[in-house]
């Protein structure tokens, strides 16, 4: 593998500066946003590089658990931040985070222990990339599905209450919404799997090839990851939609949209 030095990265940075110069002619704010984002990516990635370096040097379950927890909480916050209508009282954060925990962590641990079978199973070289990819994708699926559920419940409250008035159970009254929400949460990974290799070359696979892995080995890992991501996203989305649609009703099966608060994003 060819190592990059500071000069190589600086050359790429100069290209970004040139782009920022061009962007400034279009809109000053755009150039500023671009530069801030470039700076953030540099600092954040360098920091995580240092963290990973330390973790690789001190392989311990405790450190892995700590990093996983931080990743999970940040992902939970991110799910909330993307909602236009959030559950009040920490329910949105709790349901999103719990669903991600159940699905991503279960699938990651299963893959590490049963499929990859490394010793120890929590070795950071495998555990961190796997968990990161699973969390990232599950987070997307859950936030899309929850957004869809709460937004549609708000728009179609007349229909939902109309069904309740005709004596339907709450679960029956939102069955259609649940289906649509789960579907919308799963569409990104279905699209990604359909287009993989034909339209797009997935990032993990290309990364492995760049690092010198034989292409067929890289492809096998990519297939594994795609399957794991679809299972993690699917389970997480189902859990989140199930929990959120129950929270939309109270114990007397009344539609409780007062449990959502609208946020401008």
């Amino acid at each position, binding site marked *: 593998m060819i190592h990059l030095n500071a000069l190589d990265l600086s050359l790429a940075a100069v290209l970004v500066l040139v782009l920022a110069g061009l962007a400034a002619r279009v809109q000053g704010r755009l150039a500023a946003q671009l530069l801030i984002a470039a700076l953030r990516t540099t600092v954040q990635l360098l920091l995580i590089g240092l963290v990973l370096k330390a973790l690789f040097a001190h392989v311990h379950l405790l450190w892995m658990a700590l990093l996983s927890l931080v990743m999970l909480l940040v992902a939970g916050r991110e799910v909330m931040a993307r909602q236009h209508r959030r559950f009040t009282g920490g329910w949105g954060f709790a349901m999103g985070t719990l669903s991600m925990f159940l699905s991503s962590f279960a699938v990651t641990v299963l893959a590490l222990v049963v499929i990859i079978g490394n010793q120890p199973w929590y070795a950071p070289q495998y555990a961190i990339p796997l968990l990161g990819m699973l969390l990232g994708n599950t987070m997307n699926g859950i936030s899309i599905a929850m957004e869809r559920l709460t937004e549609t419940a708000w728009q*179609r409250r007349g*229909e939902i209450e*109309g069904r309740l*008035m005709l004596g339907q159970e709450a679960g029956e009254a939102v069955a*259609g919404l649940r289906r649509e929400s789960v579907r919308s949460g799963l569409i990104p990974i279905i699209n990604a799997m359909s287009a993989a290799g034909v339209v797009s070359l997935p990032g993990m696979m290309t990364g492995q090839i760049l690092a010198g892995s034989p292409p067929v080995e890289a492809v096998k890992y990519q297939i594994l990851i795609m399957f794991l991501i679809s299972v993690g996203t699917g389970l997480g989305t189902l859990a989140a939609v199930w929990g959120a649609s129950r929270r939309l009703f109270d114990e007397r099966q009344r539609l409780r949209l007062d449990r959502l608060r609208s946020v401008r994003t």
Partner: protein
Amino acid sequence: MCLSGPSGAGKTRLLRAVADLDPHQGAVYLDGTACVALPPARWRRRVGLLPAESHWWEDRVGAHFPGTPVAGLEELGFGVEVLDWPVSRLSSGERQRLALLRLLALEPAVLLLDEPTANLDPANVQRMEALLADYRQRRQAALLWVTHDAAQAARMARRRLVLANGALQQDAVRTGEPVPAARS
């Protein structure tokens, strides 16, 4: 029983509370059974609410009914073919009349009617009143009817309640004497 009162008096809120659609204080009983003692879906099938604006979610009218034949179509001026109509082609008056039939198909023991004849022409008001009077008679049902029309209240109700600012202002029972007109 008719319920009237100025806009914002709490008429609709009262109906929604009785149908157990909103959290509320106080207790509601039907034939000695408390609302909270029944599963919510069963309560709402027995205590049917007809909202001022009805909602339709299937493409076809007939898909909203539990089965055929649908009682009362003829009495409200429809033919059976209305069940095959797309919902999108219904006028507001047609929606209102069909929403009543959809509710009556469940045979509720109590009807909560939120201005059921507000969008109707006089001929259809008459049809709806006749149908409801017949249903009340046949099912021994109780009706709680929100209306702004004092003449309608006089025709349909033995007892008249007036709400204002969320509180009961007047409770009059007709005993053959003319009842003082409710403020509307």
